[in-house]
């Protein structure tokens, strides 16, 4: 969206005579405060640019790596309908990765640079995708809980101050809703099925509940980026606010399925009008983030293999296009 070619024009804006960076920064913040959008060629502070590159590229990586745990079940989906739905969902995740990489590219980073950062471990992706999917119920739990948490996180980003990111998120949120509903429907089918199916559904929510709550990131007291990101309107709510909202809407859904949320401290707090939930195991979160989750190595290896195995295709396609171009040129001459 909005081209690398244009970036070369945009750089001139940095050297306007008579305007110092404090003035530019004040004008920028004024625009953000007025809920105006920042577009690729507009002046922006370096830290804003870098924060966005980090956040959008990690978001894109999460979509791409997120294809792996579910892709695991495409060949083994229980019915043709479920298989078609799962293929469509995984294809959507790939598409979402593409929208987001395009949005990040408008900030002056190339697609290849982002891939390199993912493969070298310099860029992170959502820790949730480092958990395995041993049963079919995991596909349901991912759609319901993981995509549910993602939607909760993403809806406020539709109003993010950076135009290309906000527009990509609008598109993504529209499509995610199908993901969450198909996941809930899988859980509902299992929960109403045989005793073995019920147990499978319960086992899935027991494993995915806490990692889903961790998706909202560290608690507000620990989050180093929150305050600045809120000032820049990259973020609209804090991690803890969104996490609470997610618990409040999801617990009644689990009740409907008659599945148990694996939290002995969970109770409705009538005074606060919120669910009170138990402490999150941040040691687990940090361990997974550092690369020591159940599937970290496997996921990155799969990406590395795809990148290496695809190299000859990328090169051959370029060589073919170049050959066609030369042939057309000769013919025209």
């Amino acid at each position, binding site marked *: 969206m909005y081209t690398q070619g244009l970036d070369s024009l945009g750089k001139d*804006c940095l050297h306007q005579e008579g305007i110092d960076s404090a003035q530019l920064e004040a004008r920028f913040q004024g625009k953000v405060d007025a809920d105006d959008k920042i577009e690729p060629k507009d002046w922006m502070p370096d830290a804003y640019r870098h924060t966005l590159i980090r956040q959008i590229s990690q978001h894109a990586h999460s979509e791409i790596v997120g294809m792996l745990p579910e892709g695991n079940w495409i060949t083994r989906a229980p019915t043709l309908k479920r298989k078609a739905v799962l293929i*469509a969902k995984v*294809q959507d995740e790939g598409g979402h990765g*593409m929208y987001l990489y395009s949005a990040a590219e408008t900030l002056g980073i190339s697609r290849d640079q982002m891939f390199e950062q993912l493969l070298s471990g310099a860029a992170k992706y959502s820790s949730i995708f480092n958990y395995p999917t041993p049963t079919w119920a995991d596909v349901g739990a991912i759609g319901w809980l993981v995509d549910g948490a993602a939607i909760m996180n993403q809806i406020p980003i539709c109003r993010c101050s950076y135009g290309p990111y906000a527009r990509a998120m609008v598109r993504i949120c529209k499509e995610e809703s199908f993901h969450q509903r198909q996941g809930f429907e899988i859980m509902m089918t299992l929960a109403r099925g045989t005793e073995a199916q019920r147990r499978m559904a319960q086992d899935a929510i027991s494993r995915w509940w806490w990692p889903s709550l961790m998706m909202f990131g560290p608690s507000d007291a620990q989050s180093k980026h929150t305050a600045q990101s809120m000032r820049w309107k990259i973020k609209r709510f804090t991690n803890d606010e969104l996490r609470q909202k997610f618990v409040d809407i999801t617990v009644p859904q689990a009740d409907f399925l008659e599945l148990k949320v694996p939290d002995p401290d969970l109770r409705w707090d009538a005074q606060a009008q919120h669910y009170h939930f138990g402490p999150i195991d941040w040691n687990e979160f940090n361990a997974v983030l550092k690369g020591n989750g159940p599937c970290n190595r496997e996921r990155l290896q799969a990406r590395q293999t795809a990148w290496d195995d695809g190299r000859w295709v990328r090169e051959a396609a370029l060589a073919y296009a170049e050959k066609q171009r030369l042939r057309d040129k000769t013919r025209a001459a």
Partner: protein
Amino acid sequence: MSEKQEWPLFEVFIRARSGLEHKHVGSIHAVDARMAIEHARDVYTRRQEGISIWVVRSSEMVASDPEEADALFEPARDKVYRHPTFYAIPDEVKNL
């Protein structure tokens, strides 16, 4: 072939329905225009969002500079007489 060569970037425009204009929806990497259209189909029209696609190399796009927006668009700002509401016409005059 150089190790680092990336596929070029294309801007994608889609006509949602017949009778509507093409609208910018995003960008796509591809080796040539034909592949750009095929990839744009997969990335931007998975839910019948379009009936026609335009692609153009991003490097061929020329855009106005946002820093010059004031100079460029200011001249239109004080010409309210270009709008029909500028003219006060009595209510009893019909069909105007």
